[in-house]
C-alpha cells in the first residue's frame, strides 16, 4: 500500500469534517472500549496473563532466528512449502509465482494486514487471479475500492445505506436497509466463491514454531472456509507472528479476543498444521507459507524492538482519543493509531511517517490497554527525538526550542522577559486574555482563549511578600 502518512494533518482535517465517519468511529470505538473493560474486569487473572504474553513475545524476539528456523523446519516436515520475502516486491513476486505454479484463477482471501502492507492483491490480479475478500468488512471495502479504516472493523466508516447501494451496484442485489439481509447476500455470494476457488489466502494471528502451525482467530468463519475447502492454502505472515510453542497459544487466546472486542474467545479459533493427511476428506493438498520481513529485521536490532510484540488487537486504537477523532484512514497506511504511529515510520521511513509520532498527547491510555505491554508513549518519544537528530524537524521549532532553553538558562533573563511581556499585555490585552498568538501558536487562539501573562510573575510577588532571604536565592 502506498503510504500517505506525510499528509496526516490534511487527512485528519478531512476526517474531522466527515460526519458519517465521525459517528461510525465513535460507535465502534466506544463499544469496544466498554466491552473490553467489562471482560477484563470479569477476568481476575488478566494482568498476570498480560505479563506472561509480554514475556513470551520478548523471549521469542530475543531468539527469533532460532524460532524462525524451528518453525520453517517443522512446517516443512508436515508438507508446507515455506517462502521468505525480504521486502514487498519480493513478496508480490513470490505470491504471483505460487499462483501461476498452482494454476490459480480464483482465490478467496481472509484478513491479512501484511498482505495489505505489501499490496499482495495487485500482484495476484496481475497474474490473472480473481481475488475475493471474504471478511464481510473487507468484502465491502473491496467492492468500494477502499483501504480498511480499522484493524478489527475495516468497514466502520460505511453506513448500511452505503453498503446496500454498493451491493446494488456491484452484485445486482435489490436495495435493503435490513442488516441481516445484507449479511445474507454477502454470505450467498461468498459461499459460491469458497466452493469454486482454487486457493484460499489467509493471514496468521500466530505461528507456532514447535509444530509449524498457523493459528487463526476469527468471528465470521470465513478464515475456516478458505483454509479447508480450496485445494491450495497460501498463508501470509510477517516474521514477528511467531510464538515458541503451540502450548503458548492459550495465553494469547486469553489476551487477544478480550483486548480487541471484549469477547472471552472469538467464535472460531483454527490451528492449521501442514497439508491434508491421507484419508482426510477436506483440506488443502498444497500449503504455501509466505514469511515477510519488509523491514522487521532492521527494527529487531534497535531500540524499537518492542513494537514487534504487537498482536494486532486494536485495543490501542479504540482507546486513543486522537484515533477516536480522526479514524484510521488519516494515518495514511496499513497500520493506524498508536501502534501505527510507531510501526509506520519504522517501515516506510521517518521522513514519510514524520507527522505520526507527533500526533499524540502521550496520554498513555494505549500503553495501559496493550495486551503485551508495549510502552507505546516511550517509543513515540524516541521517534520524536530521532526526528530531531535526523534533521527532520521544522527549523522554526528547533530555533524556538533553542531560544526557550536560552531564556530558561538564567532566572534573571526569564524574569526580565516576563516583566516586559507582562507590561505589554497590560497595554494590549483586554479582560485578561491575549487576543491572538503569533505564528503557529495561532492554532490555540483561533478557537480558545489564552490568558494574558500577569504583570508581575510569581517570583517577583514572592520576593515582595516574603522578602529576600539568603536561602531563597
Amino acid at each position, binding site marked *: 500500500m502506498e503510504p500517505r502518512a506525510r499528509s496526516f494533518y490534511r487527512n485528519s482535517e478531512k476526517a474531522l469534517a466527515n460526519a458519517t465517519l465521525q459517528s461510525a468511529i465513535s460507535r465502534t470505538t466506544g463499544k469496544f472500549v466498554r466491552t473490553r473493560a467489562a471482560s477484563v474486569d470479569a477476568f481476575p487473572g488478566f494482568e498476570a496473563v498480560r505479563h506472561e504474553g509480554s514475556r513470551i513475545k520478548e523471549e521469542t524476539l530475543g531468539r527469533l532466528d532460532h524460532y524462525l528456523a524451528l518453525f520453517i523446519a517443522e512446517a516443512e516436515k508436515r508438507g508446507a512449502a515455506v517462502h521468505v520475502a525480504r521486502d514487498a516486491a519480493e513478496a508480490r513476486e513470490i505470491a504471483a509465482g505460487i499462483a501461476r505454479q498452482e494454476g490459480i484463477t480464483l482465490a478467496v482471501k481472509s484478513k491479512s494486514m501484511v498482505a495489505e502492507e505489501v499490496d499482495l492483491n495487485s500482484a495476484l490480479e496481475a497474474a490473472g487471479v480473481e481475488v475475493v475478500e471474504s471478511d464481510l468488512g473487507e468484502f465491502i471495502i473491496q467492492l468500494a475500492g477502499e483501504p480498511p479504516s480499522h484493524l478489527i472493523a475495516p468497514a466502520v466508516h460505511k453506513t448500511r445505506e452505503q453498503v446496500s447501494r454498493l451491493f446494488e451496484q456491484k452484485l445486482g442485489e435489490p436495495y435493503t436497509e435490513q442488516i441481516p439481509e445484507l449479511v445474507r447476500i454477502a454470505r450467498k455470494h461468498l459461499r459460491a466463491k469458497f466452493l469454486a476457488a482454487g486457493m484460499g489466502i489467509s493471514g496468521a494471528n500466530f505461528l507456532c514454531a514447535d509444530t509449524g502451525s498457523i493459528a487463526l482467530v476469527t468471528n465470521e468463519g470465513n478464515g475456516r472456509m478458505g483454509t479447508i475447502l480450496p485445494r491450495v492454502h497460501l498463508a501470509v505472515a510477517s516474521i514477528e507472528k511467531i510464538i515458541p510453542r503451540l502450548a503458548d497459544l492459550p495465553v494469547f487466546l486469553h489476551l487477544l479476543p478480550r483486548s480487541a472486542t471484549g469477547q472471552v474467545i472469538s467464535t472460531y479459533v483454527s490451528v492449521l498444521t501442514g497439508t491434508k493427511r491421507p484419508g482426510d476428506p477436506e483440506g488443502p493438498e498444497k500449503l504455501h507459507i509466505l514469511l515477510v520481513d519488509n523491514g522487521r529485521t532492521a527494527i529487531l536490532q534497535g531500540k524499537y524492538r518492542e513494537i514487534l510484540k504487537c498482536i494486532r488487537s486494536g485495543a490501542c486504537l479504540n482507546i486513543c482519543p486522537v484515533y477516536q*477523532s480522526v479514524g484510521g484512514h488519516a494515518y495514511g497506511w496499513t497500520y493506524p493509531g498508536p501502534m501505527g504511529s510507531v510501526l509506520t515510520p519504522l517501515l516506510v521511513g521517518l521522513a514519510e511517517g514524520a507527522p505520526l509520532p507527533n500526533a499524540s498527547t502521550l496520554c498513555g491510555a494505549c500503553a495501559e490497554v496493550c495486551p503485551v505491554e508495549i510502552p507505546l508513549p516511550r517509543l513515540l518519544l524516541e521517534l520524536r527525538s530521532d526526528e530531531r537528530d535526523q534533521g527532520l524537524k521544522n527549523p522554526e521549532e528547533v530555533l524556538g526550542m533553542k531560544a526557550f532553553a536560552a531564556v530558561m538558562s538564567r532566572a534573571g533573563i526569564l524574569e526580565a522577559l516576563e516583566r516586559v511581556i507582562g507590561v505589554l499585555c497590560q497595554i494590549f490585552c483586554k479582560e485578561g486574555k491575549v487576543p491572538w498568538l503569533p505564528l503557529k501558536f495561532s492554532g490555540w487562539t483561533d478557537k480558545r482563549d489564552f490568558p494574558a501573562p500577569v504583570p508581575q510573575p510569581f517570583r517577583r510577588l514572592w520576593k515582595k511578600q516574603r522578602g529576600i532571604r539568603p536561602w531563597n536565592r
Partner: protein
Amino acid sequence: MAQKPPIPVSLFFTCLADTFFPRVGFATVAVLERFGAEVRVPLSQTCCGQPAFNSGNRKEARKMARKFLSVFAGNGYIVTPSGSCAAMVKNEYPALFRDEPGMLSLALLAGERTYELSQFLVEVLGVTDPLSSFRGKVTYHDSCHLRRGLGVTEAPRKLLRAIPGVTLVEMEESDRCCGFGGIFSVKYPHISCRMVDDKIERILATGAPIVTSGDIGCLMNIGGMISRCGYPVQAVHLAEILAGDVEVPD
C-alpha cells in the same frame, strides 16, 4: 507538648504558574505551611524542560534539566503543583541522562525527593483533611501525567472529599485526555480542540460549575475553550481549592 520539626520543602512553582497564575504558587505554599512544611523557594529556578523533551528536543531538555538539578540540589523534598512537572523529573530525567552516570544518579536521587502537591500532602504529611474554606460543587479531571505517569488518583479525591464546603461529582471518563499535550495543542489544534470539546461535554454533564485538576496546562486548555464558548464553568487549580482563602499580593 513537643513540636514536630518542620519538614523542609523546596517549592518548584513551574513556569506556567510563574507567568500566568501566581495564585497557584501562593496557594501551594499556604497549604504546605498549614501542615508543618518549611517552604523554601529557590528563585533561580526556571523550567523542568518538558516542552523540549516531549517534542523530541532532548539537547535543550537536558540543558534545563541540568539547571533544575543544580537549583534543587540538596536533601529536602521538592514539591510542585504540577503532575506533569513531577512526572518529568521522576520518570524522564533518568532517560535524559542514561549516558551520563554522574548526572543519572543526581537525577534518580532528585526524582525520589520530588512530589506533586496532593501526593505529598497525603503520602508524606499524612493529611486527611486540608482544612480548606472552599465552597462549591466540583468535578475533578485526572490529568494524564498525574494519573498514568505518577499513579496518583486517590490522593486528590480524598482531600477534596474531606472539605466540608465541597461536593465532589465524578465526570464520565475523568481520565480521558483533555487534548493539551503541550505543543500538540498548537501542532494539531483541530484535533486538540475536538478532544477538549469531548472533555467539556463530560464536565457539563455533571452540572458542576467548577472543574479542577493538578496540571495548569490542562486547565488552560479546558478553561480557554470554556471561556471562548461562554460555558458556566470555571477552571480552578487543585491547589487553590485545597488552600481555600489565600492572600496574594498585588
